[in-house]
């Protein structure tokens, strides 16, 4: 029954571009799905492992820059580029993990913030590689034929299907993690790190593995974002605000749940983007507001609360 519901939901989503042709609506859905992936990425570390990171923009930015630079300098098409971008993000997550996981709780959060800022400053100043504050721009995307027709990159629809696949992959990965041995390790160390150590879990290894997966997803999402927008600069993919947005989507949606990031992204991104259409700036005000409401009144998040209600009801 539950599986049927999930399949039906994705089926409806897949047909959506045919039902509503409004480009703003398709753009909105692409944004929602990108943020679902980013929220899912943060949820693996912040939800399952309970390690609150304020530096996930570092992985998103690494993925975005890797994809861009590989395409612009070496001609690697972005559909491979985003996977390599994810891999690059995973690779830089290893040293970050070994440094930051020596710290706990709020100290971990602050250290990730510092690492992400250092990486942002490197991206801003390593001008021979990243073009610095000027940013990188893709003028033309490689032509692709799909079922005998060449894909129209000017349309948003191909991007919608690509990000839909990525988002399904991210949620699938979360579902898989939730039932895996690693997932159990992460939940154990989230609840009590000392007890987890005592029963023989290598908590550093488990957290590094969790971060590796989390960084991969953020890197892929960043790579996709660069490909979709065709322009990035250090502020658009490395800023502290992006790290904070990921945290908020995962928390408001529901920590440690598989569908939470999707629910959080649908809710927050659609409210914020609709607001942005009318006022241009300040759309993140809702992120702040809903975050405060969520922490105060339902720390388990929207999806977590719905699940709880259903369980009590049945």
């Amino acid at each position, binding site marked *: 029954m539950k599986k049927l519901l999930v399949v039906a939901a994705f089926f409806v989503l897949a047909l959506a571009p045919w039902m509503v042709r409004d480009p703003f609506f398709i753009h909105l859905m692409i944004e929602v799905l990108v943020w679902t992936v980013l929220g899912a990425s943060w949820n693996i570390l912040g939800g399952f492992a309970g390690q*609150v990171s*304020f530096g996930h923009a570092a992985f998103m930015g690494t993925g975005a820059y890797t994809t861009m630079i590989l395409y612009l300098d070496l001609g690697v098409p972005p559909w491979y580029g985003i996977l390599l971008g994810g891999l690059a993000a995973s690779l830089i997550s290893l040293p970050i993990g070994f*440094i930051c996981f*020596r*710290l706990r*709780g*709020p*100290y971990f*959060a*602050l*250290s990730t*913030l*510092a*690492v992400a*800022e*250092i990486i942002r*400053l*490197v991206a*801003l*100043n390593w001008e021979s590689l990243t073009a610095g504050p000027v940013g990188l721009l893709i003028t033309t995307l490689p032509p692709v034929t799909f079922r005998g027709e060449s894909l129209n990159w000017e349309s948003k629809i191909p991007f919608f299907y690509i990000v839909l696949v990525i988002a399904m992959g991210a949620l699938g990965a979360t579902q898989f993690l939730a039932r895996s041995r690693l997932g159990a390790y992460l939940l154990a160390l989230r609840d009590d790190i000392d007890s987890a150590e005592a029963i023989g879990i290598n908590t550093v290894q488990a957290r590094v593995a969790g971060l590796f997966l989390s960084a991969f997803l953020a890197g892929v999402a960043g790579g996709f974002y660069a490909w979709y927008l065709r322009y990035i600069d250090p502020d658009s993919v490395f800023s*502290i*605000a992006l790290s*904070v947005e990921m*945290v*908020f989507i995962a*928390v408001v949606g529901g920590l440690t749940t598989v569908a939470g990031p999707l629910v959080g992204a649908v809710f927050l991104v659609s409210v914020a983007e609709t607001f942005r259409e009318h*006022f241009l*700036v*300040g*759309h*993140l*005000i809702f*992120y*702040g*507001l*809903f*975050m*405060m409401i969520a*922490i*105060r009144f339902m*720390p388990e998040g929207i999806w977590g609360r719905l699940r709880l209600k259903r369980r009590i009801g049945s």
Partner: protein
Amino acid sequence: METFVQSLVNGVLTGSLYAMIGVGLTIIFGVMRIINMAHGDMVMLGMYGAFWAFTLWRIDPFLSIVVWVPAAFLGGMIVFRFLLKKIVPAGELNTLLYTAGLSLFLANLALLTWSGDYRTIKLPYALMPLRPMGIAVPIPLAVAFGMAILITALLYWFLSRTPTGRALRATAQEPEAAALMGINVGYMNVLTFGLGTALACGAGVLLAPSLYLYPTVGQILVAKCFVIVVLGGLGSVPGAIAGGILLGVVESFGAVYVSVPYKDAIGFIIFLLVLLFKPSGLFGVGKS
């Protein structure tokens, strides 16, 4: 040699203001263990307060501080009482996330009401710097330095000499024991948050003539604040003062002797090293 002295002077002048912001953050952490991510936005509000007082009514920032500091003190107490009080018992990570939400809310409210334009305050006496012994000292920064020292000293006197200050320090050391000795811990919490906010806002007013102001300036300042308080040891007032001056000097030397673009990175690298190897702070006085 002259460059050395010049950058030392610049570093100490800026550092005094960093210290003032850091002291605010550290007393809030020390008493309630709140890591206040919205602290930088309190500085931002102070800067805008100074800007509007100057632009609309031509009131010098160094005069309008007399209004803004008490206003921030009251505002901070209200924010604590109605927004934060119920969150604090839920633990450090929840307050961290909650204040991050508050920070984003305040920054975007400022963006909506005042737009994202970069603004400056052009004081008539800011054009020519003082030149004692060949070293250039910008007048607004020098005045801000003096006032920051005065305010920080006043706070220090309050904490160490007055009964309320002593009660506040007792609460920071051991809230339960303090409550048993008849200290109203709830009142101390409200008071501390008000004081911390007032310090941040006051530092913002003092910084306003020397920096560009824009709504998201708080993000960068709050990151610096954490560097400062961790350098000095979280929860320690003398530590935050030393950490602030140290960060100011390190940034200033970094800009001259290492590189301007990476001067902010130096602070973060020191921050990571201290967190990893000396988590109680350089002077070993903080609580970890």
